[in-house]
């Protein structure tokens, strides 16, 4: 499965204080919705990902419920975070 440039950029380095819109699959609209819910930084979403024990089904379901992500967006976001964790966690 080929990854987007956004995915590759995110996974290439520690996320630091990157905004939530820098996650793969999270564009402007979804980013705004997540920020309204309090997930304004990528590491907060990472926190949720880790609390769900990196489970794909739960995380994607949570993303769908929180910001209305569709299947592709949630899959991209999950893949992005999982790879980041494999590299840096």
């Amino acid at each position, binding site marked *: 499965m080929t990854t987007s440039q956004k995915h590759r950029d995110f996974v290439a380095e520690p996320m630091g204080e990157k905004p939530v819109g820098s996650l793969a699959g999270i564009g402007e609209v979804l980013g705004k919705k997540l920020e309204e819910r309090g997930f304004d930084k990528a590491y907060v979403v990472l926190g*949720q990902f880790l*609390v*769900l*024990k990196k*489970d794909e*089904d*739960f995380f*994607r*379901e*949570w993303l*769908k*419920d929180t910001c209305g992500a*569709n*299947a592709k967006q949630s*899959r991209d976001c999950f893949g992005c975070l999982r790879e980041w964790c494999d590299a840096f966690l």
Partner: protein
Amino acid sequence: MDDYADLSNTELTALLRRYNIPHGPVVGSTRRLYEQKIFEYETQRRRLSPPGSSAASSYRFSDLNSTSGDSDMYDLPKKEDALLYQSKGYNDDYYEESYFTTRTYGEPESAGPSRGFRQSVTSLPDADTFHHQVRDDDLLSSSEEECKDRERPMYGRDSAYQSIAHYRPVSASRSSLDLSYYPTSSSTSSMSSSSSSSSWLTRRAIRPENHAPGAGLGQDHQVPLWGQLLLFLVFVIVLFFIYYFMQAEEGNPFQREP
């Protein structure tokens, strides 16, 4: 689902552990997800226990049709799926997206042998590789272990591939080809080629009679058997010519002795 709102986080965690649902900590953001999961699990359990799992497909169709109001767009494709995978249909009531499945519960055992059969069927189009017969033998032996009642299509397929061994002794000097898996079949076939070919033909005749749905299912998506044999023949002939010309290069007939 409102019943679970009264439970504390620790009680919810205990429920998740009792149902063997893989879970993380139950905190504010995850609580709703786990409540939903428990609700879905209990509903599935309630639905599975009265009718029994074996004859549940027809019952579950009516059940799905009666209870699923919002997910009717998924009823039609899911009906075919429910025939093959009995426990995957129950998700449609709660989740419109088809990607959210309860993978945590694993596949039912009834889908196992059918999957194994399908694996062996899908391995048939790999007629162009060296090791396809080796792989088919492995798959044939493994699937024979899994489902004894499917011996006849395996048997027919095995004999169909044995007939290919006819052609191997014809093309000589191919030592690098891995013939070690077919010493017995090639010897028997060379001795009694006519009888085995006729037996192959008779077996081929019997096969569609007994397993027409199986063969039909197999031939819906793959190249037909005669096509595969033809492709394999072509491949064998190409290899023969390659080796023939390689031997000629080694000999170098143009070299003159000084």
